């Protein structure tokens, strides 16, 4: 979610459909006008904007601050849905989704949200396979980016919803143990999200989540050094923007990768001291930000691996 510029919305939508300015502007406005609109040099009139969007199969929206789904009451519920997903409360998420489905909107963006939401719940509840999940997600993303998979997204101003779908797609690949594919998708999404108009707080949180996943998968592929580099980037963002969402996870991943490097003899045993300090840091931060599951998990790790009992 964020603030998007009118001209950019038109330009990116047009490019996603691979149509030319000539094709889009025909009988609506001149090519020169469209070009000026796309570069932000001119504001389209409401009629022109609506006609352009309609030709591209999008909702005809007002030419200023608008909501991109059909109904703001739905938008509020979508927010609650994301929160439930983030706290792993799939039953609540499903309940919220059912509420949304009672009065489904009929715009492309509503459809996109609902396909993703339903398949995510079904997958997390074990009702569909990873392949089925992946298929649904790709269906969803192709509603707004028809050429997904064939074109580069590096310069795409991804919306919040699109970013979420792409994150889910990469996770699905990782769960099929295709870590490399997951990494490739995330690396591309990462540079797109950095350039998107998403609100800073949302954007940075998403970046940190991506870095956490990347570090996990690089680690699982055995590239521990790369994993540690990625973790350091993540920690830097957490520090600068005071984000706690996956901070204990990043610290734990740091230790996990260091432990592997110690086992391999790449790092000396003296680095165990640093592991312990990082785990303590992760533990007390988990307590402070009230993540009981991680708190227990890290406490146990210190007990089992290092014979250290915390307060």
């Amino acid at each position, binding site marked *: *979610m964020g603030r998007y510029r009118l001209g950019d919305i038109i330009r990116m939508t047009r490019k996603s459909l691979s149509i030319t300015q000539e094709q889009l502007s025909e009988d609506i406005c001149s090519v020169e006008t469209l070009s000026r609109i796309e570069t932000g040099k001119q*504001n389209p009139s409401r009629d022109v904007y609506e006609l352009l969007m309609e030709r591209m199969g999008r909702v005809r929206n*007002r030419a200023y601050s608008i909501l991109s789904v059909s109904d703001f009451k739905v938008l509020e519920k979508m927010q609650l849905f994301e929160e439930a997903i983030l706290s792993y409360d799939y039953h609540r998420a499903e309940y919220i989704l059912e509420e949304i489905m009672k009065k489904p909107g009929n715009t492309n963006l509503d459809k996109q949200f609902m396909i993703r939401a339903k398949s995510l719940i079904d997958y997390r509840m074990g009702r569909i396979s990873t392949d089925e999940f992946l298929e649904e997600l790709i269906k969803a993303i192709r509603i707004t980016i028809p050429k997904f998979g064939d074109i580069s997204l590096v310069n795409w101003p991804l919306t919040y919803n699109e970013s979420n779908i792409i994150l889910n797609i990469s996770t699905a690949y990782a769960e099929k143990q295709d870590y490399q594919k997951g990494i490739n998708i995330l690396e591309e999404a990462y540079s797109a999200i950095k350039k998107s108009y998403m609100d800073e707080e949302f954007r940075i949180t998403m970046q940190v989540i991506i870095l956490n996943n990347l570090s996990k998968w690089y680690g699982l592929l055995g590239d521990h050094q790369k994993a540690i580099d990625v973790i350091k980037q993540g920690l830097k963002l957490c520090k600068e923007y*005071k984000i706690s969402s996956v901070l204990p996870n990043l610290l734990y991943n740091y230790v996990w990768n260091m432990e592997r490097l110690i086992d391999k003899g790449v790092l000396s045993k003296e680095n165990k001291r640093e592991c312990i300090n990082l785990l*303590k*840091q992760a533990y007390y931060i988990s307590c*402070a930000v009230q993540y009981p599951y991680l708190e227990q998990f890290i406490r146990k790790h210190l007990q089992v691996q290092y014979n250290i009992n915390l307060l």
Partner: protein
Amino acid sequence: MYRDMEVRNNNIGTAIQYFRESFHISQSKLCKGICSVSTLSRIEAGERDVDALILETLLERLRKVTHHFELILTDFDYKAYICREEIKKKIKDKDIEKARKLIHEYDKLTIGKGSPHRQFIMVNRAYLNELEGKEPKTTIDLLMEAITCTVPDFNTNEIRDYYLSVTELNIILEILQRMIALGMDEKAERILNQIIGYLYWHGQMAYDRKIYLKVAVIAGKFFMKHNKIDKALEICDITLKMYKGSNKMDYIGELLYIKAQLLERKFIGSSEWEPGKKTDCLKLYLQAYHIFDFCEEKSEAESIRKHLREVYQWEDIG
């Protein structure tokens, strides 16, 4: 017909009306200081193109943070938005010259565009004044001028009747913190109690958690200084409960640090200062320490480290 419905549903004005009515707020209370009632009526009817910052302020007064929406901006709105972001960044980076120049540009760009723009300019002039190391009283005056842009009777009346946006509340807190720093405790306490009362009164309309944490840190410190330990502890506990589920660390180190100090003051030297209580305090100090240490807030981290060494003989801090 279908098209009309769609336009209506996609209109921010409809959203404002919906949220306003669901909170049972009258039009005049919502728009006070921002625009006229007739303008708000026209916004809600979707009849008028309105400045995006005014729309955002109205939404914010309804606790709808604008980043929960996807907004498509006209070029003017986008230009103004980018300029605001730039100014904030320059102020954050302490780039006085560029900030001054941008504020001047923003002033020219948004002339006659409404009170939220004036407010934004005054707040940043206040920050600029502070960065330049000028008279602290002037900073407070500028911030006062900023808040009265949209809360015209701030100095004379209670704020309870308003529905304030997070931006407006933050300006009031900025004033409060500077008053406390200058030892204007009497005036500060009046404003602090007003804010606590306001948040309690408007409790059913959840604000961004950050606001509660910020208020709790200010209140905790203030009441600790004036030896109202139980009052301060109560505020800490309520706020910590509310913090659960947040994904941000702002103010959490401070709040845990204050709670640790309050508990220690309450029990130390009394018969209740037993090992269990001591461990509770120690744990709180360690949590606060690790947040400060991670965020590189070095002086706070160091003072906890020193305290733990001297009072708890605790050396194992990592």
